[in-house]
């Protein structure tokens, strides 16, 4: 069923892209690659791995492993309108309704045997304790080997060495589990592609900073976190280039992403994953645009191809969710200034100890630089609890406040 879904999605996107081959088709190319990853995960032919968010996908990609963080499944189920049933299933089997709905959705799908069996699993302590617990559950259910990356909180020589040594152990683990030999040259080639995609993404993000911004509120939804799955591949470069080209063309022609852009907003952490046109409504009602998402940024230096494990370790540690809240808040302040935003929206996904857990600290931190935050109470995955009227009222009042 899932394989067919992704296969159909792939062919329909290919068809659409071929209709306008000269257009960058950024979002379509991004969606096409997501569909291809989904298809490979469900093909039954590829070597696959279920992982946590902080995993170095370029290492796995260059070793021929299709891999994906488990939260992606929760988001995918929500986007197809199916998450509610799986969340209910998880709760019926004893998983507390207070935990993250991304995780409950995948645990529900797991108990209904809708998650393909992986060749192995890789958990990470980043970003949350809940995600790692889900991966441990999955390893037990599938009776497959599990590797855990312990991500230290700070960027020190001691910590970078600890993590880069673990990355080397990860490579040995993958070799043992799959029989695939690690090829140093392939990783070097992969890292060159990672660096290329990084440069293109930086260009795209810099273009998004322009006033008016060439981005609308939807084009970069989930972009940073999902594009990580494509690192080390040509597809990653292709997608990043399409975004850069699309934004460049718009900037050149003076076209803004949102017509008559008046309000520039920062979205904190994850977007709403089920189908709901909140962004479109904000654009139409208030000419308000989400010009930057917290997760759409490059926080790491170019990786040295001759010392890839050190560079990848630095990249993982640099993720703003890692470690102390003050690091994350400094990053949000940086984005707020760079993108000249007027306000920030924190959806506060119920059950998330990061987005919701830190919300008071984030609000106070952004307030220090004069950026107000509206904290919503949205379950980004479970549509059953969505109070549309309440959310709209709060956002309307917030935008009115910052407009004045």
């Amino acid at each position, binding site marked *: 069923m899932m394989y067919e879904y992704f296969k159909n999605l792939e062919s329909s996107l290919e068809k659409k892209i071929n209709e306008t081959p000269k257009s960058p088709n950024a979002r379509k190319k991004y969606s096409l690659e997501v569909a291809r990853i989904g298809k490979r995960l469900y093909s039954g032919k590829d070597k696959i791995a279920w992982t946590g968010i902080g995993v170095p996908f370029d290492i796995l990609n260059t070793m021929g492993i299709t891999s994906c963080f488990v939260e992606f499944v929760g988001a995918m189920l929500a986007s197809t309108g199916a998450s509610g049933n799986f969340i209910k299933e998880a709760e019926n089997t004893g*998983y507390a309704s207070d*935990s993250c709905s991304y995780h409950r959705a995948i645990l529900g799908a797991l108990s209904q045997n809708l998650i393909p069996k992986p060749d192995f699993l890789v958990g990470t302590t980043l970003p*949350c304790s809940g995600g790692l*617990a889900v991966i441990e559950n999955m390893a*037990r259910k599938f009776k497959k080997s599990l590797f855990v990356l312990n991500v230290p*909180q700070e960027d020190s020589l*001691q910590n970078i060495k600890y993590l880069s040594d673990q990355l080397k152990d990860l490579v040995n683990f993958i070799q043992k589990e799959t029989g695939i030999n690690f090829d140093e040259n392939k990783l070097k080639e992969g890292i060159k592609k990672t660096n290329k995609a990084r440069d293109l993404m930086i260009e795209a993000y810099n273009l998004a900073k322009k006033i008016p911004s060439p981005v609308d509120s939807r084009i970069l939804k989930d972009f940073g976190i999902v594009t990580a799955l494509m690192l080390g591949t040509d597809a990653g470069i292709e997608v990043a280039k399409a975004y850069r080209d699309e934004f460049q063309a718009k900037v050149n022609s003076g076209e803004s992403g949102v017509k008559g852009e008046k309000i520039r907003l920062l979205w904190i952490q994850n977007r709403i994953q089920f189908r709901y046109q909140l962004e479109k409504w904000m654009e139409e009602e208030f000419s308000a645009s989400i010009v930057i998402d917290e997760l759409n940024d490059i926080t790491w230096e170019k990786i040295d191809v001759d010392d890839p494990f050190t560079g990848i370790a630095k990249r993982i540690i640099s993720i703003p969710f890692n470690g102390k809240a003050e690091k994350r808040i400094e990053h949000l302040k940086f984005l707020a200034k760079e993108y000249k935003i007027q306000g920030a929206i924190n959806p506060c996904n119920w059950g998330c100890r990061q987005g919701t857990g830190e919300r008071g600290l984030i609000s*106070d931190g952004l307030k220090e630089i004069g950026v107000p935050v509206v904290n919503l109470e949205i379950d980004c995955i479970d549509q059953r609890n969505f109070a549309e009227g309440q959310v709209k009222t709060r956002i309307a009042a917030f935008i009115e406040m910052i407009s004045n």
Partner: protein
Amino acid sequence: MLTNKLVGFTCSYTPLPLIHAAGYAPYRLFPLDNSKDSAGHILHDNLCPHVKKILDRGIDNNTPEMSGVVFMNSCDAMRRLFDGWRKARPNDKAILIDFPATSDDSAINFFALELSRLWKELWEWNGRVGDLSSIKQSISIYNDLYSLFSDVTSKIRKARLKDGNLKIQELYNKASTEPPENIIPILKNLQASINSALDNDSNSVPIFLFGNVLYELDAFKLFNDCGAFICDDDLCTGSRLFYPINITEEEDLFLSLSKSIFSRSFCARTFDPKYPLKFAEDILNKAKACNAKGVIAHVLKFCDPYLIRLPIVREILKENSLPLLVLEGDCTLRSIGQQKTRIEAFIEMLR
């Protein structure tokens, strides 16, 4: 080293002998229920009530004078507590120590480096330079404390002494907030007088109790009143507090301490990737070893490491015909009191 200078801690993975060796008495910040409920403006309501109640204490200045606080990066909630504490009490000295989630060799070596970092920081708080020999002395004291607790607990539980678990918990609480030198003589006295100190209770039902934070004496009294006898426990505020620490002349002290901490019983957040959810089997084995007729899990609301692993624990116990009662707590006696009928019904069912 008997001292009145306190260093706060909040998690049972905290290396207490190091704090002691640096010239402080480790002081556990229990989630007391007598501070204003004010942490909500810093940390959201969906965070662990343990950390929020500790933060309430911090905001309310409901703490003794402390030279600093050691936080362990053991779970999301503990990390958030560190963040919240820094916000509420920016002038306090505080350190966040990484604690790997797995117990392999590289994790043990890394944690040894973290312990060394903590050691330096503790002495900075003191304004002096530390002497490694003091660590050996403190480890020896904590090993005594462990042996005494182990012996006293085992005797009390073997003899099924009425109110014995109340006494044990009272001493665990005292040992969490006072220097070990104060507790050792009390344990020695109790050890000598154990048979006459308490009445035997042979009618109660043996229960294995596990979970995270449960330190209120009234909670243990409630278990007694409901007809349960705790024949063994695995709690952050109970048996997991003290463990044997093996040191040798050849090995680095921080490495020895790291190995010992990774050899003790874990809470749900620490595991061996080679045996996913072995945690569930460990609970089964501990319950069987103490001849429990049933198992009670006391888990705090919003504690992801436990809540996401509990369904598997339930499954394993069910396969082995051991009933499980899950109590969700919020660090108030009100919440445990509300569970009375459930506990009574559970015990009645096991008779």
